[in-house]
């Protein structure tokens, strides 16, 4: 480390240059604070993996107008396809919107590649005046009289003082755990995502997926695509590649003794998926954990001298219809930055002085969304929704559409037969219906 950084003291030290950290650093630097942004990778994004569907365009547009004109984005998302799968059949909801804000600025969502996007975003924080230090692991915080007063990095003379530390160090957040803000996780609270980026000619992508220009589509899959493992799969169109992956709840992978990369191969071989990936060539394989349990795994969000944001705070919404992390990372990063800016202005850094974080998280709609959907993650990962209902829907449609010369049956007798065949109990279905209502309707 250079003598300058070791001896200097910063207003704000941000740990982790992902979407939460870089956004927090950017806002703090713009407010005129001395900001240090620490990243353990060789460059920001080197350790980061997600789908990656980014639904935070409008949020980022507030900070950097028309950001997509200069950022490395792949395609904007104007189509979404959510499919229920059985081993042979797929029943999908196909959403296509050419309306305002989907195919026009600020665009509802973009597909991005994290090593490129995160690197660009960190560079924006740097341009705003933040000091970015890469290849730097933070091992612990510095404490004085029980207060966090900086960080200890794994370098010579590695103690760096800061008035506020914002921990954006990802799903495994060692910092939040070291400070006692976060407990150890259970295997049912986290999911493992394994992913491949497969190169494919842009003209083939556009023809095959019926896209024009910069349009992109996000496919999400539920059901037998992960066999009996609780999880799902995704396929996104990049400019000249496809991002696809399988997500499996860790406890469920263990119970079923399934290897994640074998599920990935089976996903690509599914009759509904194989034609989409035909001829594509593997460019990179990757894996990452996802904090899927949302509200229930939220840590204590602040203490004397420290705030937690992004995946480190469990701000990843895995609610079936929604699979969003980067936008909440940014929203919570902004909320943390606003809190830090106020604290620096008042020169007070106690937990009480930082308690405004709650208010900012609410105003930025982070806590409101996670609270509203707090029942959804458990429902999404429930056994019947995961293993039974997609199969029932797929097999029901299979029978409904089958023409074999026999008398057609109307839907009610067919439903009765399906209930018998799959041993569906009306009580369970009522309970699940109530879960849907509770998780999604109000």
């Amino acid at each position, binding site marked *: 480390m250079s003598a300058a950084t070791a001896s200097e003291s910063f207003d704000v030290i941000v740990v982790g240059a992902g979407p939460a950290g870089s956004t927090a650093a950017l806002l703090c630097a713009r407010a005129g604070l001395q900001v240090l942004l620490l990243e*353990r990778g060789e460059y920001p994004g080197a350790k980061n993996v997600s789908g990656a569907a980014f639904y935070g365009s409008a949020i980022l547009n507030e900070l950097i107008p028309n950001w997509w004109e200069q950022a490395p984005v792949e395609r904007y998302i104007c189509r979404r396809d959510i499919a229920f799968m059985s081993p042979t059949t797929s029943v999908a909801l196909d959403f296509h919107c050419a309306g305002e804000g989907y195919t026009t600025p600020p665009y509802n969502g973009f597909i991005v590649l994290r090593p490129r996007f995160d690197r660009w975003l960190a560079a924006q924080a740097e341009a705003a005046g933040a000091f970015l230090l890469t290849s730097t692991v933070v091992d612990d915080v510095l404490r004085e009289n029980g207060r966090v007063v900086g960080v200890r990095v794994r370098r010579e003379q590695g103690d760096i003082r800061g008035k506020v530390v914002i921990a954006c160090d990802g799903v495994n957040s060692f910092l939040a755990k070291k400070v006692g803000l976060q407990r150890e996780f259970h295997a049912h609270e986290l999911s*493992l995502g394994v992913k491949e*980026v497969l190169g494919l000619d842009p003209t083939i992508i556009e023809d095959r997926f019926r896209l024009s220009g910069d349009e992109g589509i996000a496919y999400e899959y539920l059901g037998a695509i992960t066999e009996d493992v609780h999880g799902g799969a995704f396929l996104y169109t990049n400019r000249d590649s496809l991002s696809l992956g399988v997500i499996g709840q860790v406890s469920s992978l263990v119970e079923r003794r399934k290897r994640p990369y074998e599920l990935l*191969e089976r996903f690509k071989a599914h009759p509904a998926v194989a034609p989409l990936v035909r001829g594509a060539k*593997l460019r990179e394989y990757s894996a990452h954990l996802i904090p899927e349990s949302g509200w229930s795994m939220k840590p204590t969000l602040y203490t004397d001298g420290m705030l937690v944001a992004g995946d480190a705070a469990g701000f990843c919404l895995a609610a079936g219809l929604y699979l969003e992390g980067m936008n909440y990372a940014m929203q919570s990063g902004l909320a943390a930055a606003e809190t830090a800016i106020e604290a620096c202005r008042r020169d007070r850094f106690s937990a009480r002085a930082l308690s405004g974080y709650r208010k900012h998280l609410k105003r930025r709609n982070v806590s409101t969304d996670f609270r509203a959907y707090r029942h959804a993650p458990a429902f999404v990962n429930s056994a019947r929704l995961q293993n039974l209902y997609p199969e029932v829907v797929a097999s029901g449609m299979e029978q409904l559409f089958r023409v074999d010369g026999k008398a057609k049956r109307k839907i009610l007798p067919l439903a009765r037969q399906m209930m018998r065949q799959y041993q569906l109990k009306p009580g369970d279905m009522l309970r699940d219906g109530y879960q849907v209502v509770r998780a999604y309707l109000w």
Partner: protein
Amino acid sequence: MVMTTHEEKMRTVRFRVAATPHIVVDSEVCRDSGCSLRACVYVCPANLFVPLDDGGILFNYEQCFECGTCYIACNQEGAIRWSYPDGGYGVTFRES
């Protein structure tokens, strides 16, 4: 090629290998506890845990994704100790 073996997948990933391992598996804990679940062997996306005949586990840290799944999945207290590799070392994703 769309369908690939695990070895072919791993060949696409760039690692800068640190001199010292960031994850240490205490094979004695695996053996002494008689762990038959061996969750680490199945869940690791890089397939780095090799079960040994004596009940122990052999672990190769060089091609680790640093995802943390093994630590979350392991049900034997103290069997897996892990931190992050030194700054700039370990996995470096370029595309994902």
